[in-house]
């Protein structure tokens, strides 16, 4: 009976240990992604340059009274389409990008992905 209790206790310790290490392992394997906001106001992307980690989320929100969009500049790889006042658009960062507002082509921004 003593041996049985000792065996069960050992199994319990083992189970707790496995659960503990498993939870630690999950924490290190799953990176915590951040969410950033870029405001479009006064005819500028604010901030105009943003450094993020791969997988982070960027939300652009139009605070101006005129329409804007957010468009990758070199190959038009992605675009938000026109954003009315108060509308927002979300992108998960995968690579560096120079972007601009294709409606007001002098408005430019830069995304640096680490």
């Amino acid at each position, binding site marked *: 009976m003593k041996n049985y209790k000792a065996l069960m206790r050992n199994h319990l310790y083992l189970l707790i240990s496995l659960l503990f290490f498993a939870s630690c392992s999950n924490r290190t394997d799953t990176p915590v992604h951040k969410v950033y906001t870029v405001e479009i106001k006064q*005819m500028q992307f604010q901030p105009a340059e943003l450094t993020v980690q791969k997988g982070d989320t960027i939300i652009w929100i139009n605070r101006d*009274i005129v329409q804007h969009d957010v468009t990758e500049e070199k190959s038009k790889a992605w675009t938000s389409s026109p954003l009315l006042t108060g509308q927002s658009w979300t992108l998960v960062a995968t690579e560096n990008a120079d972007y601009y507002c294709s*409606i007001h082509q002098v408005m430019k921004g830069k995304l640096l992905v680490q």
Partner: protein
Amino acid sequence: MKCIKPLVKWAGAAILYTMVMPSPAFSQQKPDLSDPEIASVAVAANQIDINYAEIAKEKSKNADILEFAQTMANDHKAVIAQAVALVTKLGVTPKDNAVTQKMQADAEKTKKMLRSKSGAAFNKAYIDNEVAYHKAVISAVEDLLIPESDNNELKELLQNVVPALKTHLMHAEMVQKKFSK
């Protein structure tokens, strides 16, 4: 281009009147505009550029000109909508005045000039006028309309419009370079 000169002179006179800047057409004192008159000038200035854009959309086939004209029409309509919403909220009726009338008379001459041109000559005339017009309007808004505004919300609206006008000017200058080659 001719129509812009009086407005530039007028704005210049407004800025420099304390320095007794001589100007044949605008040697009188700085215009004393009420808020309803400022609202009228602001709406007219936006509507004039919408009208120029409509002519460009009728006459031009150039993609840069058409895109720019569409942006001008959309943005200036948005500004007018904001101005109308504000004067409605404030219970103010825009009041016609000599400045508005002068701007509209000059705009008629410019529209006639633009309609007389076609093809590349039209494109160049349109974008040259957009550069000159935005320079004049920025000067008038910053140096006369904002300082003359009594109501803080009207002043704030005018201040918020300046970055858009400056962006339009930079955009127009960018397009203008393509037609000066």
